[in-house]
């Protein structure tokens, strides 16, 4: 069924010794239940799951013990029944050898299942239900990276054309998928069917290397049995070449399409899943079992009985070494994963995780310590071996000199870290380690850049906020100052409005003009001074141009000031003059009229005298003089009436404040004296009355009436005084 399939090839790749047959001689057996299980909370790509149990909690097999945090995360279940004995940092299966949060379960060997059930009929099942079941079961990619499967399965079915099942298992030693397909092909195909129900691809391709003929056969049979005439699932046997099992490489082999740099297979309408993941999906959906165990190859020359085990997640490697009769003393290196991409584990307590497909207990002879690194001879073999078509040599130089920018430009991010370049390098240069270092540095630098950008934004925002706050404060302060100034000005204006009547020709304007004169003089002096300075500066060629500019500006300022002063001075003088003239122009004051009257009366007197003299002399001027006298009399009467009117008018208007005051004060003085007198009289009357009472005189009654009279008088006087003083106050 695959003979007609058109295969493609990827550039590069190597053919390392396979070492697979050792572990395919015996069938898969259960590894059994170890005393303790250690379950790291990060067994997947994405956010760490959150522990739901505390030490001391009893858990059943399949019970959820840690839940996913966010979409890209995965649930974790208890692989067997027992008691949680610790939730703490433990050594985990990671290149770094670092510790991470783990749940430790002390098993009770009862293996009691929690209540669970799968779907009997997947035909009618809704894709979202299936995805949900996968998500709940905590399934992650079992090929190595451990990407949560439900995320991949949630791709838009309309955009997905091809579902590729990765059964290449290209790395030497590993046979877990091979044995799984040989022994449980039916379940595997069932899982693939569920996946294709979710993603609805046009075709499903199972890519399998030609070094696994039994597995391919088993799959084909299973497909024939399960699916009657539906031929969308194709088993495609591909030539054995490392790293054909790489996602991008497998896609290229099967479809001829290349996943773009920094892109995802889904951009090509392709989803890739590992064959082991398909088996896990079958278990989750059909049997209702979460991902609590996996097939792991236990192999290596130090291992006396290499084979595949069905291992509970969290089983310490130590347990596997024990049941497989591995000679720990003879083991020089314990590798988790394959020899190409795996990593050395230092502690045998390290647990098997969801992505652990192989444990190699290698002898010194089998996996010798890396030979000494020698100088790069620029042979270019790494470039030929690189399946990602990168320039490993260039990347090596850049990584070595920490030239991260250039490394990035040469697409170091597209390196799949397969190790083919290191494998072929005649100088034994650990190329991949250089790339991993450079990738890590780049990632770190990016994180730092992000952080520093954020810090910059925060710093700038803070500065802006502080500036705004000070501006607001300043504005408030100014508003307050303005309000205060306004109030002050209003007060002044009110005072000025009240003042001019009293002080229109008072000496105040004189002072004003004097002040203004002084100001004017000062500004004049300032102007001449600055002019002198300016002249001196301009004469001196070495002088600062800035200073000259400053002086000029200052000169201009003082000049305008002087002009202003001159203007105000002139205005003030004018106002003063006007005030002085208005005073002279009033001819109708009572004093003047009195003078006129006096003058007229004097004239009348002289005229009368002359008339009398003329009458005695009997001159002929008598008639003339008589008319003159009558005229004078008329004038006198006129003057008199005018004078009286003037007095009246002055009495009606201005006398109220000025001349009335002394009168009232006099009144008050007399009233006060009267009151005092009345008081003394009352006191005296009181004394007399007391005396009369003491001596028992008959005149007591008379004294009493006298006293009463005096008191009433005193009261009257007091009332009058009060009235006068209130009037005065008014």
């Amino acid at each position: 069924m695959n003979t007609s399939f058109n295969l493609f090839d990827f550039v590069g790749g190597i053919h390392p010794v396979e070492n697979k047959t050792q572990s395919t001689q015996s069938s898969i057996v259960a590894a059994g239940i170890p005393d303790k299980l250690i379950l790291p909370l990060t067994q997947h790509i994405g956010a760490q799951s959150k522990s739901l149990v505390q030490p001391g909690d009893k858990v059943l097999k399949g019970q959820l013990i840690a839940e996913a945090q966010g979409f890209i995360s995965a649930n974790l279940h208890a692989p067997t029944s027992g008691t949680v004995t610790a939730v703490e940092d433990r050594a985990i299966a990671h290149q770094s050898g670092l510790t991470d949060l783990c749940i430790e379960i002390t098993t009770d060997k009862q293996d009691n299942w929690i209540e669970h059930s799968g779907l009997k009929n997947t035909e009618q099942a809704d894709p979202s239900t299936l995805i949900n079941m996968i998500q709940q079961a905590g399934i992650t990619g079992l090929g190595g990276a451990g990407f949560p499967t439900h995320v991949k399965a949630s791709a838009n079915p309309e955009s997905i054309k091809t579902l590729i099942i990765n059964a290449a298992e290209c790395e030497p030693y590993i046979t877990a998928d091979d044995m799984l397909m040989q022994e449980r092909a039916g379940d595997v195909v069932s899982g693939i069917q569920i996946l294709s129900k979710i993603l609805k691809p046009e075709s499903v391709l199972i890519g399998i290397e030609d070094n696994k003929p039994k597995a391919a056969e088993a799959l084909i049979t299973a497909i024939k049995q399960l699916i009657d005439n539906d031929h969308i699932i194709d088993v495609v046997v591909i030539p054995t070449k490392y790293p054909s099992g790489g996602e991008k490489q497998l896609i290229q082999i099967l479809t001829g399409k290349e996943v773009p740099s920094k892109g995802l297979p889904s951009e090509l309408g392709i989803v890739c899943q590992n064959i082991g993941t398909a088996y896990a999906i079958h278990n989750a959906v059909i049997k209702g079992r979460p991902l609590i165990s996996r097939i792991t190859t236990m192999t290596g020359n130090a291992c006396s009985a290499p084979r595949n085990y069905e291992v509970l997640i969290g089983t310490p490697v130590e347990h596997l070494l024990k049941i497989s009769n591995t000679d720990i003393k003879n083991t020089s290196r314990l590798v988790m994963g394959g020899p190409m991409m795996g990593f050395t584990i230092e502690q045998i307590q390290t647990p098997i995780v969801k992505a652990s497909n192989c444990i190699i207990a290698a002898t010194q002879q089998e996996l010798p310590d890396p030979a000494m690194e020698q100088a790069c001879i620029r042979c270019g073999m790494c470039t030929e071996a690189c399946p990602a078509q990168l320039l490993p040599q260039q990347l090596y130089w850049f990584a070595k000199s920490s030239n991260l920018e250039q490394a990035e430009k040469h697409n170091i991010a597209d390196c799949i870290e397969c190790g083919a370049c290191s494998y072929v390098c005649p100088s034994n240069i650990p190329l991949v380690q250089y790339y991993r270092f450079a990738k890590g540095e780049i990632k770190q630098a990016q994180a730092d850049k992000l952080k520093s950008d954020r810090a910059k934004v925060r710093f700038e925002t803070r500065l802006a906020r502080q500036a705004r706050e000070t501006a607001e404060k300043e504005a408030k302060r100014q508003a307050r100052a303005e309000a205060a100034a306004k109030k002050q000005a209003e007060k002044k204006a009110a005072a000025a409005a009240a003042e001019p009547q009293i002080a229109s020709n008072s000496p105040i304007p004189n002072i004003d003009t004097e002040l203004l004169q002084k100001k004017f003089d000062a500004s004049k002096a300032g102007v001449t001074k600055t002019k002198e300075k300016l002249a001196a500066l301009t004469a001196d060629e070495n002088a600062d141009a800035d200073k000259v500019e400053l002086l000029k500006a200052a000169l201009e300022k003082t000049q305008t000031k002087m002009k202003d002063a001159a203007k105000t001075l002139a205005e003030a003088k004018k106002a003063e003059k006007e005030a002085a003239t208005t005073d002279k122009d009033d001819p109708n004051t009572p004093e003047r009229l009195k003078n006129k009257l006096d003058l007229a009366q004097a004239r009348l007197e002289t005229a009368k005298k002359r008339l009398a003299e003329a009458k005695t002399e009997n001159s002929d001027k008598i008639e003339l003089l008589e008319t003159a006298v009558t005229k004078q009399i008329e004038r006198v009467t006129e003057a008199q009436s005018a004078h009286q009117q003037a007095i009246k008018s002055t009495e009606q208007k201005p006398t109220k404040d000025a001349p009335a005051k002394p009168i009232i004060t006099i009144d008050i003085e007399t009233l006060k004296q009267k009151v005092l007198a009345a008081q003394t009289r009352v006191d005296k009357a009181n004394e007399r009355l007391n005396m009369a009472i003491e001596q028992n005189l008959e005149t007591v009654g008379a004294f009493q009436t006298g006293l009463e009279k005096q008191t009433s008088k005193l009261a009257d006087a007091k009332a009058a005084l009060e009235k006068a003083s209130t009037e005065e106050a008014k």
Partner: protein
Amino acid sequence: MTSIIVAVSALVILSLIFGAVLGFAAIRFKVEGNPLVEQIDALLPQTQCGQCSYPGCSPYAEAIASGEEGINKCPPGGESTIQAIADLLGVEPEPLDAEHGTEKESAMVAVIREDECIGCTKCIQACPVDAILGAAKQMHTVIESECTGCDLCLEPCPVDCIDMVPINGGLPAWHWDKPAQIIATDGGNQDTSNEGKAA
């Protein structure tokens, strides 16, 4: 004679056209601000610590751009920042000026010993990136992800309850080290290479 006139007029017309194009470009594509300052600022670590004696990274960038200040006054950035600025400006990198401090081994973050905090808000006012949270007479705490490790909060604290601790990113921050350079004459004891090789 005519050929000279033609040549001169052609040159004049060409110069006018290019002049117009250049003039337009000068206005249309005018660069706001000094791009060099921004470029230098982008290379600085943005801790805003003021160890360079400038009130923040961007004033220091301005000082470098104007040639007032050397490029070796940034201890948090260290040698790598000096190198980057030297590359940008085309000048010789200088060793870090020890007067302004020394480069730290790893990034630091401030941590407040919360039970000792008296809630004086002094550190909040000192923090250049607003990474300290708290209110008067309430316990304060540092937002670790935003702390630049600038040390500016240490000095104002009246009860000395702030510690600078190295950042431990744990597993997510871990990355491979550079392979130890093994020279052929070094002999046996080698770095544990994780790169397996099939026999």
